[in-house]
């Protein structure tokens, strides 16, 4: 990680932020939620707190803009530059700006959140069936008022679940009209307008009057983008018009003709050749959450990292299950120190806007009968073959918990972690807990180590189960024990295995196919031949020779669900069999499923 020159940082930890305007691409509630989650990424690992304010001077001012937007660092249209932010300080310092020539989504395509209707603000389901026809966009068919709507399930015909799509005929954003819809036609500087316009503005945002005359009433709002709105070009926010004429040919859908980069575009009037009005068609877009989390890193004092997987790497890439990379954690904690500990990242439902706007008359699709609530999916009780399948694990008699009140979730760390008979075992001070994702039984325990494996010391360093014989090996200090059921061999010295005197405690073990196990100590590892109980020649080797990107001073190392896990502090690094770190998560919340 890198920090800015002079380690610029905030001199207080209770930071405020203010969102000055919103992108027309997304519902305001979705953007607010994304920013809140992006700040939480950083507050989870530091003492920092973030509070949204709605007036006055905030530490971090957030705005959307395009091209030159007032700070001398212009954006560049669609793609390329996505956003930028300034390091901590007064005035513009700390502020974050987002390029509104991008399509802002949650990373996987346009999000069409509905309002009103009977679907409680659910997103549109594309494609959907209406009167036997399939639609992949919001439609006005079936209505006389021109309001675009969509089904929120795969079939309106079957489910009758629907909502209204973003439209200037339904509401506006910002301005001074409290969300009132546009009134068409309206008069602005003596001219009559039948649609949203960018006239009178230098920032390219589309607006309308919310009374019949702006000149007289000065009431206005910004138009939300429809799902068919184009991005960039010279018609940002206007809908595609199909069919349109381009070089004499008629097009009824977006096309890449005329371009060398393959990007899809459409005209926003019926004839490109005469009007030259165009824009790009919606694609996956960029995740406002991921980009915001990156920019807020700058706002807090982090510069770009050269670690590709880190959030602060300068290039954008979409990840579905985002976890802050250890490089980012180290960077931000270098500046602000640790917080009181990470908290679980529970997904927060995006609030609906039902409470903000109440329709005078609930608009309803005209066709057919009244909407009736019908289950969205054919009701099927979730019985699978797995339920009836016999477990492949040998039946075991469950030990009796010694003290159910001793909670694994209260432990700060564990002596050893391993998978035995398909269940994760967490050892600490003579106790252990089990967790099985297979049985979905939650955390079981605490159990007594002495009851299950009599003769072991209270504190063990590492353990693993041999996949072939099901024997369980335990390591503590420089000794090891081997259990087959309750029969025990040991203790024996790890020197008998060929691990020299220079090695410290064994921190973990990874089973490698049949009969081989990697034993870790310090920054090295040995390969143990379990059958002959001897490490192979050519070892020890450096852990980072093959396990790059994991903490070299891991406290626990274990195999779980065919992936390698390296634990340090509250976190674990999960490594695929191809030696790629594919997840960094919380031991308690992700592995133990603590509340």
């Amino acid at each position, binding site marked *: 990680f890198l920090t*800015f*020159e002079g380690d610029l940082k905030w001199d207080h930890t209770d930071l405020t932020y203010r969102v000055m305007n919103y992108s027309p691409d997304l519902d305001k509630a979705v953007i607010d939620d994304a920013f809140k989650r992006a700040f939480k990424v950083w507050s989870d690992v530091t003492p920092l707190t973030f509070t949204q304010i709605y007036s006055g001077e905030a530490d971090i001012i957030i705005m959307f803009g395009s*091209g030159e937007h007032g700070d001398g*660092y212009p*954006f*560049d*249209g*669609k*793609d*390329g*530059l*996505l*956003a*930028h*932010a300034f390091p901590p300080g007064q005035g513009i310092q700390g502020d974050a700006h987002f390029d509104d*020539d991008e399509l802002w989504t949650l990373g996987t395509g346009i999000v069409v959140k509905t309002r009103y209707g009977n679907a409680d603000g659910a997103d549109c389901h594309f494609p959907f069936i209406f009167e036997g026809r399939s639609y992949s966009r919001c439609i006005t068919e079936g209505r006389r008022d021109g309001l675009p709507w969509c089904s929120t399930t795969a079939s309106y015909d079957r489910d009758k679940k629907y909502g209204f799509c973003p439209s200037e005929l339904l509401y506006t954003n910002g301005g001074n009209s409290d969300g009132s819809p546009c009134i068409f036609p309206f008069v602005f500087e003596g001219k009559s307008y039948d649609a949203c316009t960018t006239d009178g503005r230098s920032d390219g945002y589309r607006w309308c009057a919310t009374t019949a005359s702006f000149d007289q009433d000065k009431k206005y709002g910004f138009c939300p983008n429809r799902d068919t709105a184009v991005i*960039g*070009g*010279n018609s940002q926010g206007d809908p595609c018009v199909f069919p349109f004429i381009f*070089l004499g040919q008629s097009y009824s859908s977006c096309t890449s*003709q*005329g*371009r*060398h*980069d393959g990007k899809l*575009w459409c005209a926003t009037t019926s004839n490109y050749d005469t009007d*030259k009005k*165009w824009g790009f068609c919606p694609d996956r877009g*960029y995740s406002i959450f991921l*980009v915001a989390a*990156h*920019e807020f890193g*700058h706002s807090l004092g982090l*510069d*770009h990292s*050269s*670690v*590709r997987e880190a959030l602060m*790497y*300068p*290039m*954008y890439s979409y990840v579905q299950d985002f976890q802050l990379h250890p490089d980012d954690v180290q960077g931000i904690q270098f500046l602000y120190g640790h917080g009181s500990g990470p908290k679980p990242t529970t997904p927060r439902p995006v609030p609906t806007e039902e409470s903000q706007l109440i329709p005078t008359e609930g608009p309803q699709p005209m066709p057919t009968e009244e909407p009736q609530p019908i289950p969205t999916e054919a009701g099927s009780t979730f019985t699978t073959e797995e339920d009836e399948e016999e477990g492949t694990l040998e039946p075991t008699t469950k030990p009796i918990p010694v003290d159910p009140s001793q909670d694994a979730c209260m432990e700060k760390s564990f002596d050893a972690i391993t998978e035995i008979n398909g269940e994760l075992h967490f050892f600490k001070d003579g106790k252990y807990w089990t967790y099985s994702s297979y049985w979905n039984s939650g955390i079981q325990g605490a159990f007594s180590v002495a009851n299950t494996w009599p003769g072991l010391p209270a504190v063990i360093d590492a353990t693993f189960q041999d996949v072939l014989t099901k024997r369980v090996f335990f390591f503590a200090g420089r000794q090891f024990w081997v259990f087959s059921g309750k029969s025990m061999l040991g203790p024996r010295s790890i020197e008998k295995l060929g691990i020299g005197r220079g090695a410290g405690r064994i921190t973990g073990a990874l089973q490698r196919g049949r009969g081989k196990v990697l034993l870790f100590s310090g920054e090295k590892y040995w390969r143990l031949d379990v059958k002959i109980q001897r490490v192979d020649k050519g070892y020890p080797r450096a852990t980072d020779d093959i396990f790059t990107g994991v903490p070299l001073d891991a406290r626990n190392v274990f195999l779980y669900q065919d992936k390698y896990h390296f634990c340090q502090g509250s976190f674990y690094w999960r490594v695929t069999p191809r030696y790629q770190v594919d997840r960094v998560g919380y031991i308690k919340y992700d592995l133990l499923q603590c509340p």
Partner: protein
Amino acid sequence: PLQSKQQAVVTFPGELVTRLPDLELAESYLLRFGYTTAVEVGARMGSKHESLAKALRKMQKHLGLEETGELDADTLEAMRAPRCGVPDVGT
């Protein structure tokens, strides 16, 4: 037969970023994100290749790419990738 017909490429009005030739793209990227300075670009007349290679290596190292000093495919892909506007080097 239709595919062999040469497709017309149009200059779309209002498009802020045009597709620059590779070398121009590289020079503007290296300057914008702090790997070269305007002074270096201006003084490059005599040793253009060397200074470009040096700046490319700097960029490749910073972004975790293979340090070839060449304008190779990976480097060009990185230069065309969507990204944050904050410079990688300098203020």
